[in-house]
C-alpha cells in the first residue's frame, strides 16, 4: 500500500509536485515501495562466482545490477547477515549508492579523499577498485560513525585507508591535496523513504536550507582539497534543488576553475540536472531503475 504523503507532510507534497510536475505520482508510488535488497561482492576477499554459488546453495534468487559488475539484487526474504557477510565477502549496499564510486573512477595510483565516509560502503567499494593500492583518506566527524566505518573497513580487508575524525568543513586546513575527492553529502535523505518514511515526515524547507548551508561548506572544503586537474564527485540521496543543483551552482559561482564533466554510466537511465548550468549532472529517479533517488555531479578543477 502506498504512503499517504499529503497526510504525512503537506509541505513536502507541495514542493515535490512542483518539482516533478506530471512525474510526481510515479515518483511517489516508487519511493513508497521498499527497495529490493542488494549486495556488492567485495573482490578484495571473494569472487563473484563464489558469492553467486553461495546464493544458489541457499536457494536465493538474485539478478545482476546492470550498472555495477559486482552488484547483485537478492531475494528480499533472504537474511543477509550471514557468516559470509561477517567474513567480508560482500557488503550490503543499495544499488544506487554503488554509482558515485563508479563515477569517481578510482585507479591504483590515486590518492583519494572520502570526506564524509561513514559507514563505509563507498570507501570499501573504492578500495576494491584500487585493489588496496594507492591511498584513501576516509573522514568522518562523529565518533559513533567512525566506529561503524572502521568495523566495515576491517571486515572488508581494506588496507590502503587512513581514517580521520575531523569536521569535514575546513578539511583543507591540513594542506593535503588529493587526486580525487568524493563528497556524498549529508542530506534530507528522501531517497531512503522506502525503508524509512520518517524522512518524509521530517522534511521541511527550513531543514533543506540548513542542510544546504552545510553542503556548501563541505563542497568548498572538498574542492579546496583537490590538486590541479583533480576530480570531485558530489552526490546526495535526495531530491531538493537546494541540496543538489543549488550546491553545484554555488560551487561554479565561487570557483572560476571548476567545470562540470559529463557522466556516462552503462545501463542506467538518468535525467539531466534541472537548471541550465547543471545539465551535465545526473538525477536518478526511483521509477526509472527501481533504485533510491540520487543526484550526482562530477567536477574537474582547472579544466
Amino acid at each position: 500500500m502506498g504512503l499517504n504523503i499529503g497526510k504525512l507532510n503537506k509541505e513536502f507534497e507541495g514542493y515535490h509536485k512542483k518539482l516533478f510536475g506530471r512525474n510526481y505520482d510515479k515518483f511517489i508510488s516508487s519511493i513508497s515501495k521498499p527497495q529490493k535488497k542488494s549486495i556488492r561482492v567485495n573482490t578484495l576477499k571473494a569472487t563473484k562466482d563464489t558469492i553467486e554459488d553461495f546464493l544458489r546453495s541457499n536457494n536465493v534468487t538474485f539478478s545482476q545490477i546492470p550498472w555495477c559488475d559486482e552488484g547483485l539484487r537478492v531475494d528480499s526474504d533472504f537474511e543477509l547477515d550471514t557468516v559470509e557477510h561477517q567474513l567480508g565477502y560482500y557488503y550490503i549496499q543499495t544499488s544506487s549508492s554503488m554509482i558515485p564510486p563508479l563515477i569517481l573512477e578510482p585507479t591504483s595510483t590515486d590518492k583519494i579523499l572520502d570526506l564524509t565516509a561513514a559507514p563505509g560502503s563507498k570507501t570499501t567499494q573504492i578500495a576494491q577498485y584500487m585493489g588496496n593500492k594507492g591511498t584513501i583518506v576516509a573522514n568522518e566527524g562523529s565518533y559513533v560513525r567512525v566506529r561503524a566505518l572502521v568495523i566495515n573497513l576491517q571486515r572488508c580487508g581494506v588496507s590502503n585507508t587512513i581514517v580521520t575524525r575531523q569536521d569535514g568543513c575546513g578539511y583543507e586546513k591540513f594542506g593535503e591535496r588529493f587526486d580525487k575527492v568524493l563528497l556524498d553529502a549529508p542530506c534530507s535523505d528522501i531517497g531512503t523513504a522506502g525503508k524509512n518514511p520518517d524522512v518524509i515526515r521530517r522534511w521541511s524547507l527550513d531543514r533543506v536550507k540548513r542542510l544546504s548551508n552545510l553542503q556548501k561548506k563541505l563542497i568548498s572544503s572538498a574542492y579546496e582539497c583537490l590538486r590541479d586537474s583533480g576530480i570531485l564527485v558530489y552526490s546526495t540521496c535526495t531530491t531538493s534543488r537546494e541540496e543538489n543543483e543549488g550546491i553545484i551552482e554555488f560551487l561554479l559561482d565561487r570557483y572560476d576553475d571548476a567545470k562540470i564533466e559529463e557522466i556516462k554510466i552503462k545501463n542506467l537511465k538518468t535525467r539531466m540536472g534541472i537548471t541550465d548550468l547543471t545539465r551535465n549532472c545526473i538525477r536518478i529517479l526511483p521509477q526509472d531503475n527501481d533504485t533510491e533517488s540520487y543526484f550526482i555531479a562530477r567536477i574537474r578543477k582547472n579544466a
Partner: protein
Amino acid sequence: MRRLMTGEEVLELVRKINLEFGSDFNPAEFKFFIKDEKKKGKKIFIYSGEEIPKIPIEWIGFHFGTIHDDKFIPSIEGAQIIGRTATMRILDIDKKEAIDVMSGFDIGVTEEKPAGCYILKSGEDIIGVGKLEGKKIINIIPKSRRISRQFRRI
C-alpha cells in the same frame, strides 16, 4: 600511541608468525604499525597506502593481530592472510560449527592438540582464530563481527 614499526621489529614479528603457524607470510607490500594497549596487548596494524604526515590519524589500514604474552593472535583478517600458507595450528571445522563460532559460541573438539591459538578453517573459508583449551575452542570472535543470533541459519 601508534607508531611505525622498524624493519627489525617487522622481521622479528614475521619470523614469529611463520614459526608459529608454519606459514610463508611475506610482508613486502605492507607497512606495520604498533599500538601498545597495555593489558589488551600490542595491536599490530598493516597498511598498504602512502604515509600522509599532515593529517591526524584515527585508524590506519586494518588490525592484523595482537601480541599478548609474547604470542601473536591474528585478527580474522590476519588469519585470512596467514592462513593462505599456514601449515600448522589450523583446525578444520564444519559449516554448523562455523555458524556457531560466528555467533559467539565456544565449540568442542575431539582431537587432542596442544593448547593455544588456532586458525579456524571451514572448507575454503578462514573464519578467524580460537583458543584451544582442553577439548574446547574458546570463542574470541569480536562482538562486532558476530552474526545476529535470531538470524542464525542452520
